[in-house]
């Protein structure tokens, strides 16, 4: 069954990669075969003068597909393939043995058929270890109506704003590093962290000499994939009898992201808040009912805040973010709360710097800390103290040999196991430092 699934995954990966590369070839091959992409087409007639040639019904100009006289449909896409290797632990896949299960593919299309309106959609598939498995999903599909700079509406499946990187966490070519600070932007949770089904209100309000404030308020349903990061995490934590994991459920959430673009050129500050209502999962306790056995429905309510700072100065980019998250949990059986609400709080932060040396080389570094329980940051008194924290120093090199091609190399020195605390893959964990190497390449159009 595992071999069959792996075969299907490889097949999906090859199909997705081939599709992106084929479209990219068609786009970049146009200049070679047609000269300028937009020269008016003419032909000589019997009188010896040039007359306009009728435009074909379907035509591809750059990344625009023209169909008759309709507004053009614009396509873009990318394909990323990475490699992860690590010492001591498996992280984001079977990295101790070296893992190529680290890929992303995306293809999007957009069209503006009416005034102030854009319709867009993006298909996406990814694989990070045993998460994603190249299942194609709709990353976003929405209608965007822009009333004015200060107010707009988006509806459908929309990308969630959260801090600097949430909306672009899977877009390798949009940043210097390969792996983002994982305590804040966990690659395994992409199935629900990236987008929601709902809507948002957005806009940009000028403050005259005070810069301007950008806002986006959203609400909707977050969907959890059956083979997504949360599902895998619950499967692992509940795999030992008598517990038996059953299912994880989507949940409603609402949030707001504010950015103050200050009067200082390149400096902006952000604040984000969300409330996730009733993140729930189901499991069974296979013991006699008299001892509490039966089906359980566990519910989490999660308020979260995130603060961001970014400064772009000449060829430098400096960033810092902090996130704090409360988790309120209780069990429900037959609509009745059976256990008192428990509370834990997690937090994480990072600082980073990146330097654009020239048009083909960027160098970046970041340091991040993640804590599973702010009340016990050192893990004292717990079975595995290193599960309380994970600290990571990363150094990245990004090369852009062509405008459409990115190559990256990255190293990590990590202390702690808060983000790899899964008993199945890493049963023996301690506080010793461990290391990770990441390589990645991306083509785009």
């Amino acid at each position, binding site marked *: 069954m595992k071999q069959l699934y792996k075969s299907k995954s490889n097949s999906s990966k090859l199909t997705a990669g081939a599709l992106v590369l084929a479209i990219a070839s068609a786009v970049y091959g146009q200049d070679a075969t047609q000269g*300028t992409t*937009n020269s008016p087409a003419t032909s000589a007639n019997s009188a010896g003068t040039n007359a306009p040639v009728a435009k074909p019904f379907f035509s591809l100009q750059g990344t625009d597909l023209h169909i008759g006289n309709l507004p053009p449909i614009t396509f*873009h896409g990318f394909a990323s393939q990475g490699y992860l290797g690590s010492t001591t632990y498996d992280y984001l896949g079977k990295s101790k043995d070296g893992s190529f299960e680290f890929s992303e593919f995306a293809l*999007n299309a*957009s069209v*503006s058929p009416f005034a102030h309106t854009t319709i867009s959609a993006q298909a996406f598939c990814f694989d990070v270890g045993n998460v994603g498995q190249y299942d194609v999903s709709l990353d*976003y599909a929405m209608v965007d109506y822009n009333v004015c700079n200060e107010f707009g509406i988006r509806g459908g499946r929309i*990308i969630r704003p959260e801090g600097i990187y949430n*909306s672009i966490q899977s877009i390798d070519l949009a940043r210097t590093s390969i792996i983002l600070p994982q305590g804040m932007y966990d690659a395994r949770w992409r199935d629900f962290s990236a987008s929601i089904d709902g809507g948002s209100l957005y806009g940009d309000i000028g403050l005259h000499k005070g810069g301007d404030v950008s806002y986006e308020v959203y609400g909707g349903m977050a969907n959890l994939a059956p083979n997504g990061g949360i599902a895998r995490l619950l499967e692992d934590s509940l795999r030992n009898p008598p517990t038996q994991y059953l299912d994880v459920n989507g949940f409603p959430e609402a949030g707001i992201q504010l950015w103050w673009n200050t009067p200082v050129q390149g400096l902006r500050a952000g604040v984000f808040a969300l409330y996730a209502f009733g993140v729930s999962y189901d499991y069974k306790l296979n013991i006699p009912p008299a001892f509490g056995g039966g089906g359980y429905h566990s519910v989490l309510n999660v308020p979260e805040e995130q603060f961001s700072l970014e400064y772009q100065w000449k060829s430098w980019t400096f960033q810092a973010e902090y996130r704090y998250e409360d988790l309120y949990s209780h069990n429900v059986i037959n609509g009745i709360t059976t256990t008192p609400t428990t509370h834990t709080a997690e937090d994480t932060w990072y600082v980073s710097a990146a330097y654009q040396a020239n048009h083909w080389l*960027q160098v970046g570094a970041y340091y991040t800390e993640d804590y599973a329980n702010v009340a016990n940051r050192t893990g004292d008194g717990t079975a595995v103290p290193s599960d309380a924290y994970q600290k990571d120093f990363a150094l990245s090199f990004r090369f852009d040999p062509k405008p459409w091609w990115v190559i990256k190399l990255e190293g990590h020195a990590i202390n702690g196991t808060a983000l790899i605390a899964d008993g199945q893959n890493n049963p023996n964990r301690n506080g010793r430092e461990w290391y990770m190497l990441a390589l990645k390449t991306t083509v785009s159009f």
Partner: protein
Amino acid sequence: MKLTNLKTLAAGIVTLWFSAAGLLAQSGVDVVANNSVATASLDKAALKDILMGKTAYWPGGEAVTIVVLTDKTDAALQEATGMSGSAFKTFWQRLAFSGRGKQPKEADTVEKVLAIVAETKGAIAMVPAGTTLTGVKKIELK
């Protein structure tokens, strides 16, 4: 030839060389747009809002399409947005792949830029000042 004349000649040659290398500041560019764009002039703040994606539609409702003359207008982009050419491209890739904007079109010659602007409704671009403009309109930069 006197030394001062030689120095003047050398300065002129250096200036010409830098211009040829494509380091054009905003004072050295013209803003052009598709003939469908009704706007006749833009101030620098309005141009910045367009280049940063904050203004995504023209007053008539047509979507803005930015066309970039790669490398040769980096200085003008830096002056208008505070971002280098590479940073500008990355900024727009972030918007485009998160559904929040339409990635600018790129071309490596002025002729190609003008052709794209002429054929694309709502298009806007910066080209070297004094370029012969055919099929497009010039927008006055205030």
